[in-house]
């Protein structure tokens, strides 16, 4: 049996899904990973596939040599795949709607070019008239699906782990280009094939220079980029922050700063430091979200801490921490146990674990998957892991529904600045005591007082801030606040960011 049409079908699926993975990464990065951006890429991609299939249908009914058609389309696809991310990079900072429209158009064309060969491959590989039409056609289709399954695995798991996004685009483009050259192999003279092959290698070489230039082009303009860490798990960008401490961006959105000075407080570490006054016996601490490690470093200074379990989903942050020795030293602290895992899954796998203090460094509430760490179901899971008197603190990132949800799960939940603090008891009076002041003043980090002499006013300002309850939060908003659940994904969709 001639397997060439099956391989053509496999290549179309492989290339198509590989490109989709890369576009979701690039477009998602440029659009701050809002879930609607991912739906938009998916819709544009499928629309491109539909149009490509329609064109392929017309091509397959003509009298042309279908191998030449496939070869030319795939080589053109390779060239376009190489150029399109750069075209997108050029418009990434233009007017928002223009940027999205251009992105959608580029995604659509790249998908369409590969989908043209889909009907052609089926036509070439199927019995046209016999009683085996279904079986023969379905085999070609199964090869396409096998390619579609393997594409995300090879690109998402392997290529993105060893290459930058830009280089992955180049590799997939060149694979497409050479798949096209192979299609032309039987039909074209050797000199044409050799010329095309040479052009393909030259194109690949071009994309290899300055491997993270594409991300530089697309990244948020938040200052000078000092470092970009790309892994298969995501993209971490570090910007020069001067006196305020370098800023860390995960997936192109603000994540935190390297600042450890409470007087500077450019990263709102007052929210974290008051926890040492609210929980005077934080023997076992659970932290979800490492980021650059500033919060972890500060928690190691809390008196009484015996064990810290910290969960981070993206090991790329470990690479980003290399330039920050103070934060990095926290990972070498004997009390700290780092787990690279999904926080929610990790917690489910530790049914017997109990903690006195839980700190969740939640990402922006409107980002895709954010509701996994904000929902009622997640908070109930956390609550089941809290010892009597334990405190939970996590970022609300400006969503009033976060406090509403915490109030539905915990007897006591209040907002302190951007943090929601929750527990089984009313902890607020503890912050107004002299003991709380003394506790903060006595914090020591790397052998030196965390608060320098004369910073009593700063400590007092931290302790005097108001706790906002859910009634006050509701009064400050015109719409009724709602509970975030695993089902309604509230902060990602109904109360999410506009796309």
């Amino acid at each position, binding site marked *: 049996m001639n397997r060439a049409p099956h391989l053509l079908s496999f290549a179309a699926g492989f290339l198509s899904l590989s490109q989709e993975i890369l576009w979701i990464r690039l477009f998602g990065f440029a659009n701050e990973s809002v879930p609607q951006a991912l739906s938009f890429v998916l819709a544009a991609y499928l629309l491109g596939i539909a149009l490509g299939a329609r064109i392929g249908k017309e091509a397959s009914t003509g009298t042309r040599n279908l191998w030449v058609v496939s070869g030319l389309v795939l080589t053109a696809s390779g060239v376009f795949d190489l150029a399109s991310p750069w075209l997108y990079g050029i418009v990434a900072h233009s007017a928002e709607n223009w940027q999205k429209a251009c992105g959608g158009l580029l995604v659509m064309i790249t998908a369409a070019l590969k989908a043209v060969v889909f009907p052609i491959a089926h036509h070439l590989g199927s019995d046209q008239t016999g009683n085996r039409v279904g079986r023969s056609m379905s085999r070609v289709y199964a090869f396409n699906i096998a390619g579609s399954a393997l594409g995300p695995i090879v690109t998402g798991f392997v290529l993105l782990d060893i290459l930058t996004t830009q280089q992955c685009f180049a590799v997939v483009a060149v694979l497409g280009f050479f798949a096209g050259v192979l299609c032309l192999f039987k039909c074209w003279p050797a000199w044409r094939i050799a010329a095309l092959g040479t052009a393909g290698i030259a194109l690949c070489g071009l994309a290899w220079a300055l491997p993270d230039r594409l991300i530089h082009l697309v990244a948020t303009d938040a200052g000078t980029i000092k470092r970009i860490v790309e892994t298969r798990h995501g993209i971490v960008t570090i910007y020069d922050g001067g006196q305020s401490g370098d800023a860390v961006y995960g997936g192109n959105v603000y994540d935190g700063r390297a600042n450890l000075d409470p007087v500077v407080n450019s990263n709102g570490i007052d929210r974290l430091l008051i926890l040492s006054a609210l929980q005077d016996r934080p023997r076992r601490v659970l932290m979800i979200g490492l980021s650059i490690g500033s919060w972890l470093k500060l928690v190691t200074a809390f008196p009484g801490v015996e064990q810290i379990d910290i969960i981070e989903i993206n090991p790329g942050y470990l690479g980003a921490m290399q330039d920050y020795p103070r934060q990095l030293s926290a990972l070498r602290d004997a009390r700290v146990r780092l787990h690279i895992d*999904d926080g929610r899954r990790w917690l489910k796998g530790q049914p017997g674990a109990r903690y006195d203090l839980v700190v969740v460094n939640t990402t922006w509430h409107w980002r895709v998957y954010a509701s996994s760490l904000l929902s009622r179901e997640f908070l109930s899971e956390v609550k089941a892991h809290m010892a009597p008197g334990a405190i939970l603190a996590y970022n609300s990132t400006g969503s009033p529904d976060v406090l509403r949800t915490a109030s539905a799960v915990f007897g006591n939940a209040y907002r302190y600045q951007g943090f929601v603090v929750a527990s089984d008891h009313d902890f607020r009076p503890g912050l107004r005591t002299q003991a709380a002041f003394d506790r903060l003043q006595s914090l020591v980090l790397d052998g030196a007082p965390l608060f320098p002499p004369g910073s009593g006013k700063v400590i007092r300002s931290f302790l005097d801030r108001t706790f906002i309850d859910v009634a006050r939060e509701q009064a400050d908003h015109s719409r009724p606040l709602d509970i975030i659940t695993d089902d309604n994904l509230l902060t990602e969709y109904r109360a999410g960011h506009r796309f």
Partner: protein
Amino acid sequence: MSKQAASDLRGVRRAILFGLFFASGAAALVYQIAWQRMLYALFGVDLESVTVIVSVFMFGLGAGALLGGQVADRFPLRLLTIFAATELCIGAYGFISPQLIGATGSALAAGGDEFTALASFSILVIPTILMGATLPILVAHLNATDHHVGSAVGMLYYANTLGASVGAVLAGFVLLQEFGLAGSVRAAAALNSAVALVAMLAFRRPR
């Protein structure tokens, strides 16, 4: 019936078929997005879980494609009935899927990647096989009159992925916002059921 009338009727039936496969594609994308989100809540959103779930989805589609091809060759005169029945089964599964995913996930969620794979497989294998089977079945049906696989595949895939594109927009910008995950899945299930019903009515054999 005159030749012209027969040709017109064939054109109408064909348009209905493409419309139904368009709707089926839209429903499939709503399922894909919603089921994946339900599974992510159970198994995590790390790359390993995401890849396992997507791979299981693809495996089901591939297996379904092969099965659909066998079925198409075996029952060449009942292809549209089989298509309608397949859509009905997908719809029925869609209606019960939120409860099923919750129950299966709770039983297997605490394990590692192998449990994610096992649970995803047991949850997704039936509906994805059914979804994967529909294209070969309909291609065989169209090819019986056209005798051109490229044309049949091109048109059906066009209709189906165009519907899928609309499904992605519907899920991302309307359904999840208004109805949440379970509500979106039920909307898709209703669409599959409607596809089955229209197919049965439009393509029933004259007595």
